Each structure stands twice: as structure tokens, then as C-alpha cells.
């Protein structure tokens, strides 16, 4: 699991990419990105997460987002990203995705 806090924007994209890359290299079956302490995310940061999701999927794993706050949830909803990556309102529900994967 990876917990993100603070604000993720174009200025932190490379750091975010490196963090996700390090996790994906371990080839987890399920990588949960916990977002409850993330106060802001712009579309550049979102693209980094979407690319990581595709990379993990190509390795047979699944990236799931958990517990987004209001602003982050709004960005996921407005961009349609919540239809590309599964979003759960808690880590426990995201963990259950291991048994019942969804999202395409």
C-alpha cells in the first residue's frame, strides 16, 4: 500500500512517478493507493497514477485507489478516471478487490 499526503501536482509528478514505479517493480497483485490525506491532485498527477495503473495491469496486477477526499474525488469523477481505475471509499473495501477484481 502507498499512502499519499499533502498536494500532488505538476511539480511533484516526478516524485510520485518514482514512488509508484518502486512499488510496481515488486509486481504486487494489488497496489492500494490511499488518498485520505491528499488535499489536492491536478490532472498531471492523475496522469501519473493512470500510467502506473496501466503498467501494473500489464504485469498482471491491479492498482486501486482508496478513500479520496472531496477535491480528489471531484477530479477523479470529472475526468472519468474513476471509470479507468477502481476507487473505493476505504482501504478494507479496496483490499477485498483482490477477491473480486473490477474495473477494466
Amino acid at each position: 500500500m502507498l499512502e499519499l499526503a499533502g498536494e500532488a501536482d505538476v511539480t511533484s509528478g516526478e516524485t510520485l512517478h518514482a514512488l509508484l514505479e518502486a512499488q510496481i517493480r515488486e509486481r504486487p497483485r494489488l497496489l492500494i493507493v490511499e488518498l485520505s490525506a491528499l488535499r489536492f491532485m491536478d490532472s498531471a498527477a492523475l496522469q501519473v497514477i493512470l500510467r502506473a495503473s496501466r503498467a501494473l495491469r500489464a504485469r498482471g496486477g491491479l492498482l486501486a485507489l482508496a478513500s479520496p477526499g472531496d477535491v480528489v474525488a471531484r477530479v477523479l469523477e470529472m475526468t472519468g478516471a474513476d471509470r479507468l481505475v477502481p476507487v473505493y471509499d476505504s482501504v478494507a473495501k479496496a483490499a477485498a478487490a483482490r477477491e473480486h477484481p473490477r474495473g477494466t
Partner: protein
Amino acid sequence: MMTTVTEPGAPGLWHAALFHRGAAEFETRVRRFAQAAARAGAAVLITGPASSLDRLRARLDGLGDRVSWADMAEIGANPGRLISAISRFTDRHPGKAIWCVQQAAWASRSREELWEVFRHEALLNLALAGAPVRVLCPYDAALPAEFIACAEATHPVISPGGRWQPSPSFHGDARGAVPAECDRPLPAPPPGALTLLYTDNLSSVRHAVSVFARTAGLAPRRADDLVIAVGELTANTLTHAGGPGTLTMWTAGANLVCDISDGGHITDPLSGTLLPPPGRGGDRGGRGLWLVHQLCDLVQVRTGPRGTVVRLRMRLSEFLRGTNSCGPADGDRHHR
């Protein structure tokens, strides 16, 4: 490339301005259009202000169930969402002909909004060129002459006397031919407007916007929307302008207004009108500008080799029904 097709039913984009005199003529012509669409087996989308949709529903007899209705107060209060709304509707009806009635200019529209309506009417010809889409745009013939002239210049087809004919003043070139009136410089911000310079301190700019918006009385959810929009535009400054940017904020009547200006030049006139597919377009700023259009009540872009200013407006009080509850700008509301 565009061809002028005066009769609905031929392949390719058909984009027509209907100048009507009064509600009766408007309703008759829309009903005839919807009947023809039903005979063609097309998917039909009718957008407009809620009051107009209610009247139309009652006049479409049995056809109302086969039509998708979209309240313009939600999907198109900002004219910058119009093209995207049609495109989404098209995506949801693959293989089908798409017929739309797009009522974008209603009586209470401000002049600033009307100029943006005509910008997006012009860009629609470019964005949907070749698509199997018919778009009928009703305009009240009593609109001021300068707006009627703009409608004639941005629609390949017009119907001055009840019959469709090519518009003599339509500029059918591939640039979208936005009328010059739509690109007039924006009035300067008032003295005393809050001004911030930024380079890479984007977080502090967003924080300042959040505080200003809440102090000005913008509802928390709408303040979040403004913060997201400003976040996208300031990120674009960093990515594309290669220099500092300026943010200016003030309130004007019932609006909060926010300018973001930098030295960048947006060269693609369609940037922000359509959501780029996932994984593409993210590096060119189109995705951010698209999001800005979905979140703000009016977006005015003035761009050139010397720089770009994007002016955002958020209504502080709700003039239009439903603006607080807008989800994704789906433009697809089945009424059964």
C-alpha cells in the same frame, strides 16, 4: 474539410441556425426536426434552459420518450462545454446518427456569454467535421443584429424564411473561423483586485484562491471547483509558458472573477473543447483546459504569440436552477 449540406439527412456534419420569431414557430420547427430524426432512427439530444425544455416536452406528443433532454443550466451554462456534451452523447450511441437541438442563447445570457457561444458554434464546425451529426441551433430573430450576424457567420446552413439554405457569410475554412468579435480584448481588472505572481509556488496560489473564494461567499464545493481550475491553469503556465504567471481575483456583482495570465500561446483553437483520450494529450494542456471548462461558469481565453489570459467566472448566487448539482457534464438525461 467541410461541405455545405443544406438538407438534414446527408452524411457528415449538418450545422444550422434557425432564426425563429416567437415560441410557436420555434416549437413547430423543433417538433418537425424531432419527427424527421425519429423517422431516420437517430438518437436525439435536446439541450436548452429548463423552462424551454418543459414547454417542448409537452409539444412533442409521443416523441418525448425517444429524446434525451439536457438542461443547459447544467451542461452548458458555460458555452465551452457544448461541443463536449454532443461528443459524449455521440460516444454513447455508437453507429447511430445523432440529431441535436442546441439552444445556447437565451434571453438572460450576458453579452460575454453570447460571444463565447459563438466562439464554440464556430469551433463545432471544426471539432465535429465529418461526424454523422445534425445540430439545429435556434436563435431568436429579435437578438441584436451583431449576434445574428455572428450566427450567420458560424453556421454553414441558415433558414431565414423557413427554408434551409447555405449561409452566404459562413467562412468554411478549416481554422474554425471564430468571429473577430469573440476575440476582443477583455476589460482590465478593476483597481484593487488581488494580484499574485507565481513561478512554481502553485500550492500557495491555490491556497490564496481557496481563502478568497470562501470569503467572497462561494459555496465550499464551488470553491473547490475554482481551486481545481486554477490548479490546472497554473500547472499549464509551468509546463507550457516557461516563465512566471499572474493571478488576479476580484468580485463583480454576483460573480467572482479570476484571471490567470502567462507568456504561453495556445495554438490549437480546439484545446479544451474535447477531453483527450486517457494517456494522450496530457502533455499539451488540453486535458487541464477541458477540466477548467467543466468546472467554471464562464471561461474566456485570449491567446496569441505575446501571451495568454484565461478569465474564469463563478456565480456567487444561483441564477440558474441546478448549477450546484452538476456532476460530469454528461448532457444525457433520459426523461421517461
